[in-house]
């Protein structure tokens, strides 16, 4: 029944998506003829003047307080009470509050840009609420792992609830796509720092749903991400989220973190099978001396290649200064004005019309654009070096072999959703749902490997 329901949900999403695409296409084709007539307002009753209430300090403080409480609850449910049900309820509550009620703003993901801008531009005053939203999840991650991702982030919540038919993404693809989030983070920081734009917010695929409105393109983008979420667990969190990239790093150093079984791991593999995020690693096998030597050679190669990769991407970044600078409104305006001056532009734009009336000279505009282009040579180089650093570190990371005696959640990749609790036979015994772990295993399957005593925070013995 459950499976049929899930299939129907998935089918419905597909139909909705196709319908949305067709509708979007029709609207795109006809939009040039669908301009609004000039409103007449003839029948509009003119309201009496009123001064809107000034938003006080209470609402932002309430948001921060709710975020703090949600993070506390998420950490408690994940690490102490180990309740997937409560985690799920908190996920829904967070989606409703931070997503649909607060309409996805302020959120820690976007706050990254405000903080970046405040660091690079001393004249920009970043609200304390935004700073709190940025910092609180980081602090909690350092102590408890990615409990923010587990059930507080509305973006993650939306994908979490849709992850019903997840498939396993091949490791090579998973690792490769995972790098995109770090590159996106780097780009978002330099674009925010140069006041080019807040691209994280502009391309947030969930905002159209939270605010119940967006242009066709963003609705398509959001719908596609949600459709992919049905089959690939949390694609935005894993492969795009810039804030998630920071949390992944911090989570590696968290003081406490989720452990799959509450007591003794029986190596049944059920947790790895049910994890939709590919964030559970199986026990390692003893390597032959030949494989060990090969692994060492791979590590040495990665260590030698990494600086070359960093340098190569740094050069590439400097070479991309022009296209990167074109994202800045000033540079785009300069290009448009240049085309108009040469008589090549088909028509003027709103920005160029406004510029013509502003009194600024064309030379001033060109000078400003050239100055920005020079800035982007440095910034593009930094972005390239950052990209190379991420790739180099990934190569080194993949070359280092870690010994595992049991199934363990990946420190960086685990979003602490607690799904593995539901399926862990040891957890079921703890909860009194079954009397013996064998009752939870598929027919004929027996636990393999040594039994390892586990507690919250890692292996006991």
């Amino acid at each position: 029944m459950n499976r049929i329901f899930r299939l129907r949900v998935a089918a419905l999403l597909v139909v909705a998506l196709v319908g949305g695409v067709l509708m979007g296409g029709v609207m795109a084709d006809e939009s040039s003829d669908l301009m609004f007539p000039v409103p007449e307002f003839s029948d509009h009753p003119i309201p009496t003047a009123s001064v809107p209430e000034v938003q006080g300090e209470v609402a932002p403080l309430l948001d921060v307080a709710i975020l703090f409480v949600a993070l506390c609850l998420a950490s408690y449910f994940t690490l102490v009470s180990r309740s997937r049900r409560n985690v799920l309820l908190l996920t829904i509550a967070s989606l409703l509050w931070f997503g649909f009620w607060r309409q996805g703003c302020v959120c820690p993901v976007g706050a990254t840009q405000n903080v970046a801008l405040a660091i690079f531009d001393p004249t920009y005053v970043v609200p304390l609420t935004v700073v709190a939203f940025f910092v609180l999840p980081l602090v909690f991650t350092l102590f408890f792992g990615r409990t923010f991702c587990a059930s507080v982030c509305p973006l993650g919540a939306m994908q979490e609830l849709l992850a019903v038919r997840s498939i396993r993404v091949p490791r090579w693809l998973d690792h490769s796509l995972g790098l995109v989030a770090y590159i996106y983070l780097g780009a978002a920081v330099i674009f925010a720092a140069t006041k080019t734009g807040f691209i994280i917010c502009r391309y947030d695929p969930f905002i159209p749903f939270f605010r119940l409105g967006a242009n066709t393109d963003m609705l398509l983008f959001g719908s596609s991400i949600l459709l992919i979420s049905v089959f690939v667990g949390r694609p935005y969190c894993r492969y795009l989220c810039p804030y998630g990239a920071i949390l992944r790093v911090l989570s590696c150093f968290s003081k406490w973190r989720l452990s799959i079984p509450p007591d003794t791991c029986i190596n049944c593999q059920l947790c790895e099978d049910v994890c939709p995020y590919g964030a559970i690693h199986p026990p390692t096998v003893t390597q032959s001396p030949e494989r060990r030597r090969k692994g060492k050679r791979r590590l040495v190669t990665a260590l030698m290649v990494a600086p070359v990769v960093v340098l190569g991407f740094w050069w590439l970044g400097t070479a991309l200064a022009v296209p990167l600078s074109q994202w800045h409104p000033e540079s785009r305006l300069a290009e448009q004005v240049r085309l108009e001056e040469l008589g090549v532009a088909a028509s003027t734009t709103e920005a160029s019309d406004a510029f013509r009336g502003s009194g600024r000279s064309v030379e001033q505009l060109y000078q400003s654009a050239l100055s920005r282009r020079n800035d982007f040579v440095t910034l593009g180089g930094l972005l390239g070096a950052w990209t190379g650093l991420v790739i180099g570190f990934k190569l080194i990371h993949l070359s280092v072999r870690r010994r595992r005696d049991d199934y363990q959640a990946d420190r960086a990749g685990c979003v602490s959703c607690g799904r593995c609790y539901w399926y862990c036979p040891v957890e079921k015994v703890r909860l009194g749902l079954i009397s013996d772990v064998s009752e939870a295993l598929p027919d004929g399957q027996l636990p393999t490997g040594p039994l390892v005593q586990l507690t919250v925070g890692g292996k006991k013995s």
Partner: protein
Amino acid sequence: MRFLNQHRGTLVTAVIAVAVGIASYAVVSSDPLAQRSRRSFTIDFSSVYDIDPGLIQFEQTGEIEVQLDDVRCMDVGPADKIYVAGDQAVRVYSQDGTELAVIRTEGQPGCVAVGGDEHVFPGRIYVGGGDRIEVFQPNGSRVGIWNVPEQNVILASIAVAGNDVFVADAGNRVVLRYDPFGQRVGTIGDPDNGGRTFNVPSAHFDIAIGSEGRLHVANPGALRLETYTFDGALEVRWGEPGATIDRFFGCCNPSEFAVLPGGEIVTSEKGIPRIKVYSEFGEFECVVAGPSMLGVAQSEIGDPRAVQAEAIFDVATDSRGRILVLDPRRKSVRIFERIGGDDA
């Protein structure tokens, strides 16, 4: 069903691939360079951009360049001298554009008015800005400063009558009445004292002295002009909301207006920048200049962004019935005269 089960992996992969393709297309086509999309929904202003030539009864006959970076407001004084305020100064020009004087002000001017021949101090200059009025003699020497003690004061306009100086406060949506010595003698539009409430959504709240001792007050949020006695009794109100040429468009218009010697009222609108002439009782008469004549592109019409701030044109009139338009973009005073006026 068996087909689905057999090819489940392939189908899922295909669905993901299609979704990724659509997502990529959507991101790319969502105008990543933030240029105006050709598919964006916009209001079609073409019907109001071009004015019927038959309605235009004025033509530009002169232009005076103003030596100010930030031109804000304008008035005409005795002998038709033109007073233009901006930056931290009032510059005085003769009719032929010769600069006669520069009067430095302490604050940034927001409005200026000059006492006419009927004023008890002809030629006295009143410069409003923020919450105070700086008063100057005709020769530019300072007389004093009148402070408005209320909170949230935004002085938007000054009108000078024989023995009265009226000051429009957009912040508190009232018109303050002063005697020539700076003593407050009344308030128009104070609801606490039973007055009518003005609807002032922006900092444009213009007033002007009409004929026979009447005060015209723009009620911009109501898209009307109202005429009061100096004591604050409402006598006439007119103006209809709408985009057609005889109406006032948008949230709050007219933003500026002036009174011709014959009592007709010259209005200046923002949103759809256009300058028109109405009779004293609100009958639409003709157009002075439309958006294109004022140098405003069609794409700028209705634009609520900062660019619009430089598309608001103050107007004034002189004793010869000429209409003076302060152009903040060209930083000039453009002089319009009735077509064939000299022949008439």
